[in-house]
């Protein structure tokens, strides 16, 4: 485990140095990401400026949801470039064989493919929003809150990485990176920017039990905010919910290994 983390760290170190060789490209990309998600947030503000609140949620509260999910996604996104390019970059060209020839799990090597430094733009933007929301809501940062927020972000990263692993796994069957998965990744981020309670009950069920997006966003964030959940869940459930993200990643990796086995038996 320690050894694995050390290897991943090594991969990232090398990747970051390689990206910093192209400084202008990095700065433009990161700025682009920052401005892009910034404009999105301005849209959110305009909405609240006009309507005041959303089903009982204030602008600062929704900004908090927004900040958490965007920070989470930015980190997960940076970690999964290899999975994102899996179909076009590895399966089609046969480069995946190269990873299989090495004595480490292929998923680990893919994660080490590239640490996408440019995602720092989105992360920074998310953190600024989060900082503003925190001060606007006057949240007391006690140990329990810090621990829960850490768990939330960790579970969230695991969840989004799991989605990317599933997206890559589909490439064993189709070789094309399926756009359908973007519905869950980018669509998921959009969805989780708003509190779950505003959605129709069918959506709520799907995002809790099938694709546990609410477990790494809405439920624990409600606990961090210290408000009562209009959906009636308790604090213990809210605090443990992020573990669903970790379970989701575990499940994705099982499916992934089925895909790898299929690849090694069909050779394509």
């Amino acid at each position: 485990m320690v050894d694995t983390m050390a290897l991943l760290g090594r991969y990232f170190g090398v990747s970051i140095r390689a990206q910093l060789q192209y400084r202008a490209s990095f700065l433009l990309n990161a700025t682009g990401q920052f401005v892009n998600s910034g404009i999105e947030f301005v849209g959110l503000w305009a909405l609240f400026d006009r309507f005041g609140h959303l089903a009982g949620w204030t602008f600062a509260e929704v900004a908090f949801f927004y900040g958490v999910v965007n920070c989470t996604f930015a980190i997960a996104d940076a970690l999964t470039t290899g999975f994102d390019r899996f179909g076009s970059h590895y399966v089609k060209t046969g480069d995946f064989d190269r990873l299989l020839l090495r004595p480490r799990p292929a998923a680990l090597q893919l994660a080490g493919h590239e640490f996408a430094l440019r995602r720092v733009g989105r992360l920074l933007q998310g953190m600024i929003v989060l900082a503003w929301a925190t001060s606007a809501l006057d949240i007391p940062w006690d140990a329990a809150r810090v621990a829960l927020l850490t768990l939330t972000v960790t579970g969230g990263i695991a969840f989004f990485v799991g989605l990317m692993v599933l997206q890559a796994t589909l490439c064993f069957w189709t070789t094309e990176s399926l756009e359908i998965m973007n519905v869950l990744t980018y669509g998921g981020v959009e969805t989780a920017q708003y509190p779950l309670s505003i959605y129709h009950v069918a959506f709520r069920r799907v995002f809790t039990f099938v694709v546990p997006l609410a477990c790494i966003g809405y439920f624990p964030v409600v606990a961090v905010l210290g408000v009562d959940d209009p959906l009636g869940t308790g604090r213990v459930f809210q605090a443990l919910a992020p573990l669903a993200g970790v379970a989701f990643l575990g499940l994705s990796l099982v499916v992934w290994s089925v895909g790898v086995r299929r690849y090694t038996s069909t050779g394509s």
Partner: protein
Amino acid sequence: MPRSPLERLEARQGRPYTARPAAARGGQSDGESSMSQIEVRNLAKVFRVAERRAGLLGAFRGLVSRRMRDVHALAGVDFDIERGELVGYIGPNGAGKSTTIKILAGILTPTGGTCTIDGLTPWRDRRRHAARIGVVFGQRTQLWWDLPVIESFELLQRVYRVPEGLFASNRDRMVELLRLGPLLDTPVRQLSLGQRMRADLAAALLHGPKLLFLDEPTIGLDAAAKLAMRDFVRTLNREEGVTVVLTTHDMDDIEALCERIMVIGQGRILIDGGIDELRRRVGNERVLIVDFEEVLRLAALARELDGDGVRDVRVTGKRARIAFDAGVVAPAALIARVTARFEVHDLFVEHPPIEHTVADLYAEHGQGEA
């Protein structure tokens, strides 16, 4: 490898050229028992491929219903490879060469048969197996495109968990043998193909594997780079005792390096033996080249040599090329007949180039590029 140079030499000279070498050859085990390093039995691989239909309409129909077809890439392959051997594995495109290599490397699961390499089944123990072998694909690099060569090496050290001391000594040896010193700080994308291949070879050997698979290592290289590559492979095999399995389309590679050749065609091993064995199997053709003291008429010479295994006679100026079957007429007898009749200045016997031999073999088995 507790072997002295002398023992290695003996082992090499005593190496049998048959597909199933005699079991009784102890004394050079690797602590792994006296089994061959590679044992392949009845290996089979069937691919199911969807048949494509012609045209756009066909492509759409293919979306709905697919006709599947079985392709037998390997149809029962057997061989053993001993420690320290250097084996050439050749065959026309599509004969099953890369399928075999992929199975031996652990990245493809066969449909049937067994394969044991140093006690492991490659596709079941993929990662443990990978740590013990080196693989170089001529067409594809193992290195990171944007990184200086040395950083790729250091990353591979972590990937293969090579202890610092061993890594340093392997790296220095490779840098010396492959003359990589000036290239270490150059990003891989700026290397020439020959330089990149040298770096790739080093990368595949940093963890000190005792078995190396080379898939078309000289493809696209210029003459000097090919020679350097062959020198290196020879040194590696002779001095470090590394077992090498080499696939290639370049028969000069085979002639320069391999004591043993396996020819595969239509998923089966057609020939397994030395170069002599290969030549014997496709006929004993030799060419007698004679320089006469004076210009000869073709008719006169041809009349004199008619019959008795002589296949073709050509005359240009004072020189004649006489193709004959050494199985029918002994070279010495033919030479005696020629020298008895004509004034001969000089003569020698040639083997036909091995390309011809192999092309004949492929043709015999109804395969190969036209």
